[in-house]
């Protein structure tokens, strides 16, 4: 186990190195300059621009710029071009909100996915299964930004409920329960839109693997022995179906972080997706490189955890 984890970490380090190179070169090759003031600002003189370029090493060749960024990243001195704050501080600031949103979305995806998938498997081939299948595919096919807008407008127009940010602004909460429920609402609402696709994907995974497992010989044996159908279903078949669910977590993470870009923008949610999107638009090279680095690291850790869980629930899997 320890050897496995160490090897995985080493491989991850190499991966991260590649990721940093790719993200740096793509963003720096992109036209645009990272000046923090408007491009057409008549007050900014050539002299100021020159000073600025020197300050951020933008006058150096690309490979030197990359070296500077990596050196600064590892010594913790990497500064954003936009506001000159340490990049890691900027990312850390958004990390809790991002984790909360993604954990919310994951919880919804897994719990609803499991429920729907089991329901589908239970009625495999019959109308309830067909209906849940079609619903699942509708969920997958929904454009996220479109749904967000429709939901946002519906909630605001008909219910006049605040939906933006991490909490309702400007009201005096009277007790802790209100504060909790207010936060819950502001996380769960974007999370549930983010989770729509995940629910569907998970339910398909669970359904497929349940159906497959139910055909296994040992299940037939169990049934033949006259075991209660519920017991067969929930004790034997389900245990095997947890496996794809865990694989799913690993696959969901990057998708969630990407998908969050648009949703964080619409719901004014202060997460990492928005930071990345703004960094792309502003050509804030250091922030973008560091952000790709950190998200990739998160995903790698997520995958590692998924693999370890995998070994725990499935005795056939050994980590070696």
């Amino acid at each position, binding site marked *: 186990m320890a050897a496995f984890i160490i090897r995985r970490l080493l491989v991850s380090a190499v991966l991260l190195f590649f990721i940093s190179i*790719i993200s740096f070169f793509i963003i720096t090759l992109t036209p645009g300059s990272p000046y923090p003031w408007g491009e057409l600002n008549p007050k900014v003189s050539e002299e100021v621009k020159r000073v600025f370029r020197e300050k951020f090493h933008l006058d150096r060749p690309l490979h030197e710029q990359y070296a500077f960024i990596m050196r600064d990243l590892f010594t913790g001195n990497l500064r954003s071009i936009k506001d000159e704050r340490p990049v890691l501080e900027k990312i850390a600031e958004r990390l809790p909100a991002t984790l909360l949103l993604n954990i919310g979305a994951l919880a919804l995806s897994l719990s609803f996915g499991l429920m729907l998938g089991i329901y589908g498997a239970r009625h495999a081939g019959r109308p309830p299964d067909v209906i849940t299948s079609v619903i699942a595919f509708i969920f997958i*096919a929904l454009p996220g930004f479109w749904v967000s807008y429709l939901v946002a407008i519906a909630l605001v127009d008909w219910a006049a409920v605040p939906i933006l940010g991490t909490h309702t602004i400007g009201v005096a909460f009277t007790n802790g329960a209100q504060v909790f429920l207010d936060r819950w609402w502001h996380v769960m609402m974007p999370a549930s839109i983010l989770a729509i696709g995940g629910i569907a994907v998970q339910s398909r995974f669970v359904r497929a693997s349940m159906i497959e497992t139910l055909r296994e010989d040992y299940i037939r044996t169990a049934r033949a022995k006259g075991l209660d159908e519920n017991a067969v279903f929930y004790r034997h078949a389900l245990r095997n179906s947890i496996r794809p669910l865990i694989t799913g977590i690993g696959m969901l993470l990057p998708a969630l972080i990407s998908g969050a870009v648009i949703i964080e923008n619409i719901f004014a949610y202060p997460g990492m997706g928005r930071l990345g*999107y703004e960094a792309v638009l502003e050509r804030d090279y250091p922030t973008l490189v560091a952000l790709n680095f950190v998200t990739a690291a998160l995903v790698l850790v997520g995958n590692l955890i998924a693999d370890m869980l995998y070994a725990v629930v499935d005795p056939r899997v050994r980590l070696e």
Partner: protein
Amino acid sequence: MITTAPAPIQTAPATPGGRAWRRFRRNKVGVAALVMVVILAIVALVFFVFDRLGIPFPMDPDATNLERKLLPPNPVNWLGTDNLGRDVLSRLLNGAYISLTVGFVAVFVSLFIGVVVGAVAGYFGKWVDNLIMRAVDALMCFPTFFLILTAVALLGPSIFNIIFVIGLVSWTGTARLVRAEFLTLRESSYVQAARALGQRGWKIIFRHILPNAAAPILVTAVLGVPEAILAEAGLSFLGFGVQPPQATWGNIIADGKTYILDAWWLILFPGLAILLAALSFYLTGDALRQAVETRSERQ
């Protein structure tokens, strides 16, 4: 690394295509979805031809008519008009071929890369496999959306570049699948036989292994189309997609989002179009997958 017990290899039926088709036809949802896909393809083709020939049908999608702007659906403009008085239905129909083209061509690009990379990794194994799969892992860790955004900003938002970029970031799944198929097929008796007869690597890959891996690849392809369509819509929505005034489903929504509270029809219909197209492809793909999955035959 993860090791699982290898799944038992099934022997292929005599005419796999024919059997799969028969199974597919039994799936009513699948057939309905396939019909939808065909209809969409015909619509896209017809309006593409109209556009090239300059036939404005039902109306010229780019003709502005300021006297008739932001009209709700009415007998003349069935789906209403946009902020410049352009007919939404015409723009929708005209945009169909862009969305579908992006879907198909991007999948083709990603299949091509995925199959080649996966085949090379799976066939040659050892360090080649290791190297390639680590690169694949690296790409999979990347939040693809940032990658697409930056790449499009770098290359410029032409339809060709968008297809290329979407294809470029979506081949990893195919590559993994093809590699897995290859790893198992490589050891199969007929490949061993071909190798014993002295055939060379590439020939074995294309003659013997690839045709046997065709079914899962086809399924991935069909399921990849809606992903590409949705990706293009998302890009257009953020202003990184195909540029206006050219209508695509994504940028009709992007243009319309400003008026969302005053003109619901500007985003409802194109959104439904995207949903319908993506759904048709997903259901077709799923039915196809069920049909080619030999395992279901055991019962």
